[in-house]
């Protein structure tokens, strides 16, 4: 019995089975136990939120100390950002509800986060111009519905020809409804079987290195 691997695998199995029994049985003891597990789970997930920052301090701290790479000042700025958000967040005692914290969030975090993924619209446009070609039958099929959905999503066209709106609604009916139900069944079964493999200890990637 290797207490470094077998006990954690036993914990995973036990907690997983209690969660399943809470769903399929009406035993009060199981439900009460799982309520405690849920509450503990929330606290543990909260504890885990800091792991990213510790990892960043290790990686970027090394970059600053070694100064090998030319961009080490960016690493210093990154760590300074972590410290600033934590100091302002915890300093006032009101956490994220203090006006100072709302200020730095809305001035710094919100604009970058909302813009970075939105700016992918530029790549898509350039991609449409340079590489999106109906080069084979697969891509041709994809383009038929893509173009009609874009037409339906562009208010200019349904406003002038309402048929484009109804074509889009129809595509999202049987075409999307059918294929994606088949895909969803596949994803669901895949998640269940993989989940079972993990609960019984056949899938141990989450334990990290040997």
């Amino acid at each position: 019995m290797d207490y470094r691997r077998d006990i954690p695998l036993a914990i995973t199995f036990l907690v997983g089975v209690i969660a399943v029994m809470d769903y399929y049985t009406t035993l009060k003891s199981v439900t009460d136990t799982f309520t405690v597990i849920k509450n503990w789970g929330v606290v543990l997930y909260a504890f885990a939120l800091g792991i990213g920052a510790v990892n960043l301090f290790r990686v970027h701290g090394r970059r600053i100390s070694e100064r090998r790479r030319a961009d080490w000042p960016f690493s210093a700025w990154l760590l300074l950002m972590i410290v600033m958000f934590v100091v302002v967040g915890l300093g006032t005692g009101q956490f994220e509800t203090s006006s100072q914290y709302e200020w730095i969030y809305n001035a710094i975090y919100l604009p970058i986060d909302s813009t970075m993924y939105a700016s992918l619209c530029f790549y898509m446009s350039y991609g449409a111009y340079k590489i999106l070609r109906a080069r084979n039958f697969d891509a041709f099929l994809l383009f038929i519905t893509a173009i009609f959905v874009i037409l339906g999503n562009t208010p200019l066209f349904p406003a002038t020809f309402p048929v484009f709106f109804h074509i889009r609604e129809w595509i999202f009916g049987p075409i999307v409804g059918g294929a994606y139900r088949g895909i969803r069944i596949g994803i669901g079964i895949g998640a269940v079987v993989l989940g079972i493999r993990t609960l019984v200890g056949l899938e141990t990637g989450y334990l990290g290195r040997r």
Partner: protein
Amino acid sequence: MVSTDPLVWIAAFYTIAATSYAFRDNTIFKFSENTFIGAAAGHLIVMGVKNVRDFGWAHIMKGEMIYWVVFVLGIMLYFRFHRKYYWLYRYPIAFLVGNGIGISIRAAIHSDFIVQIAATAGPLTAATTFDTFNNIILFIGVLTALSHFIFTFEGMHRGTLGWAPKIGRWMILLALGASFGNTVMTRFGQYSGRILYLVRDWLGVVA
């Protein structure tokens, strides 16, 4: 009337900086990317500490001493960085993985399989012939897409049912086209919000 609020000016700067990568990789973008990674990690800590206080420490204050066990498990999470005792981190992670998987797959078998098959096993005919036509197309879509993802059953790919996976692939590609169209709308819809911010809230060109 151009905004005089420093918050809006900083937000406008970062909005432009985060967009600049699309044009060409540059140091201003690298600066905003590193700002974002740091801010995000800092925010996680703030919300983590608040959650530990409200959902953990509150219980200890009410006298439930058992919650000290949770605090110890929480600290053990950080042993993953320790050279020798990294394996201690496996105990809390095992608890989270067991909880996370158990709570999810217990219902997935119902929502993703039973309910979906029950719905497909419904009547094909409907009130109008158009609805019946749609039901049949949806029915074919589900079954052929499903057959495309069957890999260990030879009979499904040769002989009588050989055509099913091929049509399944076509139906999937048609559906992916709709997903592509909607992704275009997502990106443009999101960025239009930022353009609105720059033109209205920052430059005040529009009311």
